[in-house]
């Protein structure tokens, strides 16, 4: 297949997305890039030694071994390098948080104990700060897409997360309202009277009310109802109860997870687990229920009673049972080091997860979770060119990206940390103070 055939297909099928891709690509005008002779991990089942990837107008138009670079293409020699899809971070507060403990610089969620009344209605897009330094720093670490998700405050629900690309551009919003966030397990209990019974009763009540509202908003408002829930929350949950918007649920313990599977069935929801430290104990039912798990593969401590089964084997066992997995930085780490998802994946591999399954967990699986896998997440014909060229095994701790493409556009690797480094690399006294050096 060649680009002439492929491009229109892409444009027709993925028109909304293509607008965004074209927006960025416009900066470089119509362009072709050829990444030649790399070890290409497509995340679509193939590893191509001496593989070539041709990108035109932001889209992957050819992937194979032994191609010839098109005339006029910008050629990048990737010999000895590893080429992968960009890393897709499936859950974090990227774009919402600069400094975790600085009130003004953290919009990740309402303050706990503050009594703020809304939850599900919150929309991450409203607080998105594309100029956050976290974006450029993690982009230089190979992260090209991320779900920017709110943290729950006093509500069971955090609100609606959005998928962004990591270009930091004005058009970097990929998919708004891509998922709703909820807190169950011990975190849910603490928001519902201190008991899991409260959390599940409250969750069901929210879903019932959201259904009732969605079925007939005017009738719902006219009805003389108890004013227990904010209408804006119920309105937002409409996307969840319709089964369209995935509900990401922080949950860890085995019995809670079994409850969640029942909830999914009863309400016909799309559910994704976050945390899941004991998910491996429910692996087969999770696979049968088509529930994916976003986990920290290094979580192996009995931090709470719901984590007694936490083990480094979680990722490998879930994958072996057919559960889709992805990785996230554990709560408490904000969004500052999404660049370490590759290290987490490497540790999962060291504990028995097949290498290509780890690669999928970093790339195509998150794209699937948010319904973006036809456009993103792998190196295949017609897909948007989010691609990283690494100086070695991307899961190895001594490896870093050399080149990052988002929407086919080669990204600036500079960032605030690089500026600080250049300023203080040499500590000898200069003609002027350090404040006059570098950092441009």
């Amino acid at each position, binding site marked *: 297949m060649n680009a002439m055939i492929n491009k229109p297909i892409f444009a027709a099928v993925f028109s909304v997305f293509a607008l965004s891709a074209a927006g960025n690509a416009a900066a470089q005008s119509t362009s072709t890039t050829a990444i030649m002779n790399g070890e290409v991990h497509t995340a679509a089942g193939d590893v191509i030694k001496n593989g070539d990837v041709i990108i035109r107008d932001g889209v992957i138009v050819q992937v194979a071994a032994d191609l010839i670079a098109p005339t006029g293409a910008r050629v990048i020699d990737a010999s000895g390098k590893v080429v992968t899809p960009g890393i897709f971070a499936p859950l974090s507060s990227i774009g919402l948080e600069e400094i975790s403990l600085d009130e003004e610089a953290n919009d990740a969620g309402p303050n*706990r104990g503050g009594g703020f009344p809304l939850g599900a209605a919150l929309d991450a897009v409203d607080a998105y700060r594309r100029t956050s330094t976290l974006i450029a720093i993690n982009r230089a670490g190979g992260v090209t897409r991320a779900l920017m998700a709110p943290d729950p405050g006093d509500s069971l629900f955090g609100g609606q997360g959005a998928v962004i690309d990591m270009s930091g551009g004005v058009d970097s919003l990929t998919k708004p309202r891509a998922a709703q966030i909820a807190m169950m397990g011990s975190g849910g209990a603490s928001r519902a009277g201190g008991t899991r019974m409260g959390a599940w009763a409250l969750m069901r009540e929210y879903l019932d009310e959201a259904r009732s509202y969605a079925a007939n908003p005017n009738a719902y408002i006219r009805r003389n109802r108890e004013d227990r829930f904010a209408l804006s929350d119920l309105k937002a949950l409409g996307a969840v109860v319709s089964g369209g918007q995935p509900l990401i649920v922080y949950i860890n313990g*085995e019995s809670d997870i079994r409850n969640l599977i029942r909830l999914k069935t009863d309400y016909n929801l799309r559910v994704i687990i976050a945390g899941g430290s004991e998910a491996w104990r429910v692996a087969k039912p999770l696979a049968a229920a088509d529930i994916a798990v976003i986990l920290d593969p290094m979580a192996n401590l*009995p*931090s*709470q009673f719901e984590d007694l089964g936490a083990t480094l084997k979680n990722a490998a066992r879930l994958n072996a049972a057919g559960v889709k997995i992805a990785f996230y930085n554990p*709560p408490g*780490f904000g969004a*500052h080091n999404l660049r370490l998802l590759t290290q987490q994946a490497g540790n999962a591999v*060291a504990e028995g997860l097949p290498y290509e399954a780890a690669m999928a967990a970093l790339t195509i699986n998150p794209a699937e979770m948010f319904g973006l896998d036809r456009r993103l997440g792998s190196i295949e014909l017609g897909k948007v060119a989010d691609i990283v060229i690494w100086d070695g095994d991307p899961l190895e701790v001594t490896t870093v990206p050399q080149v990052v493409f988002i929407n086919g556009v080669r990204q600036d690797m500079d960032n605030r940390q690089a500026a600080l480094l250049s300023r203080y690399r040499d500590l000898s006294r200069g003609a002027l103070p350090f404040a006059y050096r570098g950092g441009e």
Partner: protein
Amino acid sequence: MQKLGWMALAVLLVAACAQETDDKGAVDSGAADNGAKAGAVKPQSAAAAAPGVAKSADDAGEKDAKGAVHPPLDPYPSTYESYASGATLITGATILTGAGERIDNGSVLLEGGKISAIGAAGAVDVPAGANTIDAAGKWVTPGVIDIHSHLGDYPSPSTASTSDGNEATAPNTAEVWTEHSVWPQDAGFTRALAGGITSMQVLPGSANLFGGRSVILKNVPSRTVQGMKFPGAPYGLKMACGENPKRVYGDKGGPSTRMGNFSHYRTAWIEASDYKKQWDDYWKAYAKWAENGNAKDNAKDEDAEDAPEAPSRNLKLETLAGVLRGDIRVNMHCYRADEMVQVMDMGKEFGYKVSTFHHAIEAYKVADYLAENGVCAAMWADWWGFKLEAYDAVSENAALVDAQANSCAIIHSDSATGIQRLNQEAAKAMAAGWRIGLEIAPEDAIAWITANPAKAMGVLDQTGTLETGKMGDVVIWNRNPFSVYAKAEQVFIDGALMYDRSDPKRSPRMDFEIGQQGNEHTGGAGQ
């Protein structure tokens, strides 16, 4: 507290110190090299080191040969004993000694709990009956040492019941001793063992300007803390700069500013200097009194003067005076470059030395000052941004600190997860150095997690390198430890095999975890 609150409730709280909140301590400590001789049970002072310090029933402590009272130096003494081990020869491995050397196809011989020989495989004589481990293709390093841990004082499970790391009731709690908080049943000790950790310093949190004394442990499970205490290790004092103390005490009477922090430190050092002088004066007066023929034998002499009275003990000032005597090492949580330099001047003002700045995010900005002053910097590979004073991180931090002459770079964890993989953290920091042209070999970088923390903690003469006569604290890795795929296969502590990845019987499980459904087929350490 604000945004982090839900995380702590919802899931594990990982960074006990770094992200200090009101109810949870911040991190850090620092070990100071103080120039003190590593090793020996630290004499608390020249006076205390006088021969014949004997136990006494006196509440004030112990009495020396002449009868002068001395506060007890070691009232909760280590009862640690190494476990039985025969002679063990580990041969054919790539050995990183921790002392800057790499030996390909090398051998290490452990006898009587100590390293009795190390060298090229052919050069080490094998005693009869030695258990020989063929380690061809494997790597061997000293046991890994974490200078900054909260295992035991912020243990798993992480509940209000077990949150014992910050005595956040006053900005100066120099009187508390971490060992009185440490829960030896923390499952985190087992996980750390599987990561090759053989010794660690457990610190109070960083809520307070003076957090209290640290304790140095061998990572061998015991019913008691005393059973884990590293024999003869010096004490450390945990102090904290910057944000955490002012956040915690800003609306509780202060300090509420960084200048407030310093005024509290300095006031405390002035009191401690006075207290030290009271005791020094007492010992001097007592010695003089004894020399004048008033002691014991002549006590019946009616002309004899009464013995000088010992000052009252003050636990808080006792610890601070121990710092001023050079016996207790200052471990100071300090992120910002400017604050570190201020603190070093404060040490000069009062005559003490900081051993180590912990969480030294901005150490690279003042690496020259640190090297000149002989102060260690304990760093993460890449944590940053959880608070403003952690904003200016660079991945090259440790490499840049290390590049100075007379430097002392340390990679620390402050995390029950991070402590399991200090090798990976060191690997990231090393590779960041390579990328800016610094030549750092594995045999150099291994010191960041072995010899350098041992030096800072005052135990380098006993562990931290693979040298003859040192404790048999050794890790056998399945491959180069500076890899994400590397695993500690066997961990020896004082010559005894305390962890074997392939043998569940050599994998400790803490009381909390046994008999629980759901983790029955996972080993404690290898979980």
